[in-house]
């Protein structure tokens, strides 16, 4: 599967801006992922506060894919596609690792704080929609939509 495959049928009502790239499954690529997002979202005249929220949302999903879906193995493919419409931004991360379903919303800090577990919470707090899809071609996709006008608590 190529990350650009969704471009033709999401946000049909308007011509979307769509950008995609591919990374290897290394946490060292997190900075580049954030740069990719800020570059294209800035060009699309998104507000900086909105861009930061998208950066954190995608950063968390990318980290989860590297650490859990690929169990830390590097040199595996992670696709990133962003679609910008007049409604918001859709970010699609694709990978061939183990299924990672970000459907469970965990809670933030409890009485006895844990060192981990905040990633999924942040994803769900920041995104207006999160969807996981396992495709027949062996690629799994995590799709996150963030509206320009609703959701997000930053």
């Amino acid at each position, binding site marked *: 599967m190529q990350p650009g495959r969704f471009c033709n049928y999401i946000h049909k009502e308007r011509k979307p801006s769509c950008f995609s790239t591919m990374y290897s499954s290394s*946490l060292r690529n997190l900075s580049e992922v954030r740069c990719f997002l800020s570059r294209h979202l800035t060009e699309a005249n998104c507000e900086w506060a909105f861009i*930061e929220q998208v950066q954190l949302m995608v950063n968390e999903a990318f*980290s989860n894919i590297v650490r859990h879906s690929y169990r830390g193995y590097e040199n595996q493919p992670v696709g990133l596609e962003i679609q910008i419409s007049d409604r918001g931004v859709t970010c699609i991360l694709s990978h061939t690792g183990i299924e990672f379903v970000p459907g469970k919303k965990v809670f933030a800090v409890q009485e006895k704080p844990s*060192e*981990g577990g*905040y990633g999924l*919470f942040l994803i769900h707090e920041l995104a207006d929609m999160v969807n996981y899809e396992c495709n027949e071609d062996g690629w799994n996709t995590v799709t996150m939509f963030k509206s320009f006008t609703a959701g997000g608590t930053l």
Partner: protein
Amino acid sequence: MKTITQLKKNVLIITLQCDYLDASITSDLKTELIQSIEESGVIQVVCNLEHIEFVDSSGLGLMIALLRHLASKNGDLKLACMSSKVYTIFKMVRMHTLFEIYSSVSDAMHTCA
């Protein structure tokens, strides 16, 4: 070298030199910081976050790890110079209630026993 440490009046001041705390560095950084704390022999620590512009969940986890490490020795970790955007992320996961957060290192120092 991601940190600068200073020992003042039995308080270890750690200044993070990177501008982000993400999963690419937090594992090594945790080892480095705990080693610095152990070598200093003190249990009161102020972490200066003035350079930090981005924190992800692993960065939040790092702060919790340091807090727990120091608390186990009856010490404490105080945070200083946190930017509003980083504070917003702390607040989102309700971690702002776990830490004493000060606008300056000197303010944080004054509260250390």
